[in-house]
């Protein structure tokens, strides 16, 4: 099994690799096209600014590799946190940036002024029934979030929702394209189960 963690200079890759290792899987960190398009599973992590991340991705030509991997080779991909947001259509963080456009979700700032931003801490996810990612995980289990921008979508199938004053996309699964706004590698037992579900998909 070849698991490629896409390395574009932003993200807590050490924790992700440790989680995979704990589950018994080796992984490589790479931004090379051949590692992405020949992988069995691709993980897109990320912490930080959407705009800077997209700039890095385009500079490294990773956008093309990811699209070939996902669309032509049908390789399962999991975007985590900012990585999930990057799979969407666009973000209004630092102005406006286009995303990788692999999932019909848009990223905007939280608008409810009555809740604290960033949304930091464990929160429960109302996950879809018959979910691949949440197989064996109890409904409304807690996962760790840390973000200031949130994704919304018109899609209803395969969407996990969480509320922080307003509902937002906590997870999505559309064919071979998966995303979690929360950090499964930081969400204790449930998070490890979720990573295992993705890897064994």
């Amino acid at each position: 099994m070849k698991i490629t963690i896409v390395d574009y200079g932003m993200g807590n890759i050490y924790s992700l690799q440790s989680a995979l290792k704990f589950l018994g899987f080796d992984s490589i960190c790479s931004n090379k096209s051949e590692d992405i398009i020949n992988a069995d599973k691709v993980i897109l992590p990320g912490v930080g600014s959407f705009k800077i991340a997209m700039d890095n991705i385009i500079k490294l030509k990773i956008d093309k590799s990811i699209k070939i991997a996902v669309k032509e080779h049908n390789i399962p991909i999991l975007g985590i946190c900012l990585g999930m947001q990057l799979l969407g259509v666009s973000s209004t963080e630092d102005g406006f940036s286009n995303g990788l456009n692999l999932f019909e979700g848009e990223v905007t700032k939280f608008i409810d002024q009555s809740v604290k931003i960033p949304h930091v801490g464990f929160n429960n996810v109302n996950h879809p029934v018959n979910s691949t990612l949440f197989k064996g995980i109890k409904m409304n289990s807690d996962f760790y979030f840390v973000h200031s921008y949130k994704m919304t979508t018109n899609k209803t199938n395969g969407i996990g929702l969480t509320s922080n004053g307003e509902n937002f996309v906590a997870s999505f699964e559309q064919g071979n394209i998966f995303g979690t706004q929360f950090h499964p590698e930081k969400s204790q037992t449930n998070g490890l189960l979720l990573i295992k579900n993705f890897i064994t998909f």
Partner: protein
Amino acid sequence: MRKKRLIYTLLYNKGHFMLSRNFRLQKVGDFKWLKKHYNFEKIAFSIDELIILDVTREGRDIDEFSSVVKEVVKNVFIPVACGGGIRSLNDAKLLLNSGADKIVVNTTLHSNKELINSLVKNYGSQFVVGSVDFQIENDVKKVYIENGELKIDENLEDFLDEVEKLSIGEIYLNSIQKDGTGQGYDIKHLANTFGKLTIPIILAGGAGNHLHLIEGLKINSVDAVATANLFNFLGDALPKARMEILKKELPLANFESISDVFK
């Protein structure tokens, strides 16, 4: 609903983990000691987050500190924030690559706002936790930087206003007078401060038992409570404290023990 957090803070000083009382440090044990008394692989499900601070007063070594972080967080799948002596973007990046999800800054909030701006710009607001140490002097909350050694001009309220404008993600509020005393948090002096902040607040300094943790978590605008008391939460004291908090129906996340699921 977003849950509140119980945070454990580790103070590291050149090879040893420390107990701090009013910011005076006492050596407790090395990594072996920590592993024996606080096996985070086993007790991680009783805390929501781990903060590791390098409190070395002279000759901090960020490379050495990052390797300690790597070792402590091995097989610990909870959020980790690290800090102490971060003076550049590269320092932050090194800690990020060693398992930190967030970084903690203190002196820099006052002395290098440009660095804070670039940390926020590159890694986002949520990446930066501002740690603010204060002490009551003639009924005024005075702010200290440099490991609590240097008093600055602004009082706590003014400084927090300034810090919030830096768009950081959270505030770690620590009372120098209560630190390590085990007498409970300084809720009396902070009562009017909590509600003014629009970003999450981590309350620190003084927790000696689970009742203090509960007292802190009961405050509406307190988002997390932290303790750094290495002696008061030995062995299974942290799991027990969490159970007591959950009994009070305070909103904490529910975790299953990792060893029950991954045998």
